[in-house]
């Protein structure tokens, strides 16, 4: 089966399955977070899994999407347009800063992106007149309920956001899988393994890296916009360093090489804190532990490890 179609069917089935079993709005809200994180982490998969570049600043792009969606409506911009502008702005910023930053490799790149993320976070925290500062701000505007009312469906707010974010996660995954199996996707994966060989085949490595960085920034920004809308409230924490780390940890835990890794990582690290409330108090420690254990026990992540296991069983 065509990989994009397979991805679509599996993820769409999961979205529907969630809706079938969730007993309360609370579950829908957690489900919404899972889909938002899946979308953001799919962007990390494109960057880290396909090309092999580490970004510790993606929360910055996430925050640009979120704050554009929060701020622009108070200047008369409709929410949907605000979200689109936020995503475009994040993409533009990534395209501009990407070129110089992406010439760096390994931990130099990690540190440069870390700096970028911190800069964005600082602006959001300091410019209180615009962003509400550390206290955060309320997001006015669109409710997904209205969207469903148009087609005669009367859903609760939490349900409607669940469907909207689920749709975005499915679409994001399908686009990423399409890319992975396309001419540019092969170029990106070639760079992952050997940029000398890639450039000897006529691949403009700097341009390809910058493209991947831009795409992944747009993924993060769209996820941020969805979070702002679904939550109705945001704080600068969405742009904080720990959020960047969280996204990378989700990708690495699930397996950065595939979109399914993004889903599994997002699911585990989003749902777990809800189930185990102790998790909330030790969140940072647990993220660190997950990272270390994944690196030691299954460097390619959970999904590839399980696939290997299944293959070995079959033999």
């Amino acid at each position, binding site marked *: 089966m065509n990989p994009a179609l397979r991805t679509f069917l599996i993820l769409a089935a999961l979205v529907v399955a969630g809706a079938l079993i969730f007993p309360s709005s609370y579950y829908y809200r957690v489900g919404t977070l899972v889909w938002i994180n899946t979308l953001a982490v799919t962007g990390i998969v494109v960057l880290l899994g396909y090309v092999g570049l580490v970004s510790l600043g993606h929360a910055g792009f996430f925050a640009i999407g979120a704050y554009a969606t929060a701020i622009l409506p108070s200047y008369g911009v409709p929410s949907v347009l605000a979200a689109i502008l936020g995503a475009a702005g994040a993409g533009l910023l990534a395209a501009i800063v990407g070129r110089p930053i992406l010439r760096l490799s390994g931990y130099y790149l990690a540190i440069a992106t870390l700096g970028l993320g911190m800069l964005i976070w600082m602006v959001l925290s300091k410019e209180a007149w615009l962003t509400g500062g550390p206290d955060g701000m309320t997001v006015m505007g669109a409710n997904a309920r209205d969207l469903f009312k148009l087609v005669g469906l009367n859903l609760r707010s939490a349900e409607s956001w669940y469907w909207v974010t689920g749709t975005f996660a499915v679409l994001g995954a399908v686009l990423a899988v399409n890319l992975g199996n396309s001419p540019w996707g092969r170029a990106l994966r070639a760079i992952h393994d050997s940029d000398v*060989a890639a450039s000897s085949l006529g691949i403009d490595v700097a341009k390809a890296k910058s493209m991947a960085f831009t795409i992944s920034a747009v993924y993060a920004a769209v996820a941020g916009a969805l979070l702002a809308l679904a939550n109705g409230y945001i704080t600068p924490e969405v742009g904080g360093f720990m959020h960047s780390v969280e996204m990378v940890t989700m990708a690495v835990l699930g397996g950065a090489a595939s979109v399914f890794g993004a889903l599994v990582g997002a699911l585990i690290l989003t749902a777990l804190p809800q189930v185990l409330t102790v998790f909330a108090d030790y969140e940072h420690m647990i993220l660190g532990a997950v990272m270390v254990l994944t690196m030691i026990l299954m460097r390619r992540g959970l999904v590839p490890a399980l696939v290997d296991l299944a293959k070995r069983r079959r033999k």
Partner: protein
Amino acid sequence: MSRLDIEDLGISFGGIKAVDGVTFSAGAGEVTSIIGPNGAGKTTLFNLVSGVYTADTGRVGIDGTDVTGKPPHLLARAGMARTFQNLQVFPQMTALDNVMTGCHMIERSNLLADLLGLPSSRRETAKSREAAREALRRAGLEKLAERPASELSYGQLKRLEIARALVTGCDILLLDEPAAGCNAVETREVDDLIHGIAQEGKAVVLIEHDMRLVMRISSHIVVLDQGRKIAEGRPDQIRNNPDVIAAYLGAHGAAEAEAANA
């Protein structure tokens, strides 16, 4: 005018001249071989020619156009392709995907079409797959197409790199020790493959330690020692050149070359 013209090319690493004022040309339809002892600067010369290193001195010309200092991907666009002595394959991909990557320059697809999985993007992928299968077949690897590259043997990977370079549609092909790690049968296959490539009118530049192969296949041989060109000529001239015998061929090498001649 030759396909590839190298003039006075040189580079130093920490005061040591790894390549020192090397000049030679490679013509279309010919195999030009670069030979010399370990550390002579052969691979470094390839890295200079293909833009991986920036030369301290000298010029590189393709079909009469100066391409000195161009980055590797632009040289590839100008028609140059290469393989690597220290294998640069994409181990996570299948053999087929490895070769398909070589189709990058002929693929007419844009990023948006690729993301959306538009028919135009799929068509390009289908075309590349065909071209890659054909190249794999030529390199004798068609049965391994779906295998991850990491499962292939050293000799197979060497040929995989040749297949990958071939699908770029290059006019100039630089091969760095393609027969290393090959058994006699495989070496014979590599020999035929290179011969066929030159017959198509491509300029082949070959680095190789297997003197039988070199003497059999080359139109022209350039001998390097300590970064410098110490001799140049047809195989029969090189085989009997006392400087070359002293620096490289030695008694054993000369015998091997003689055997190839017999």
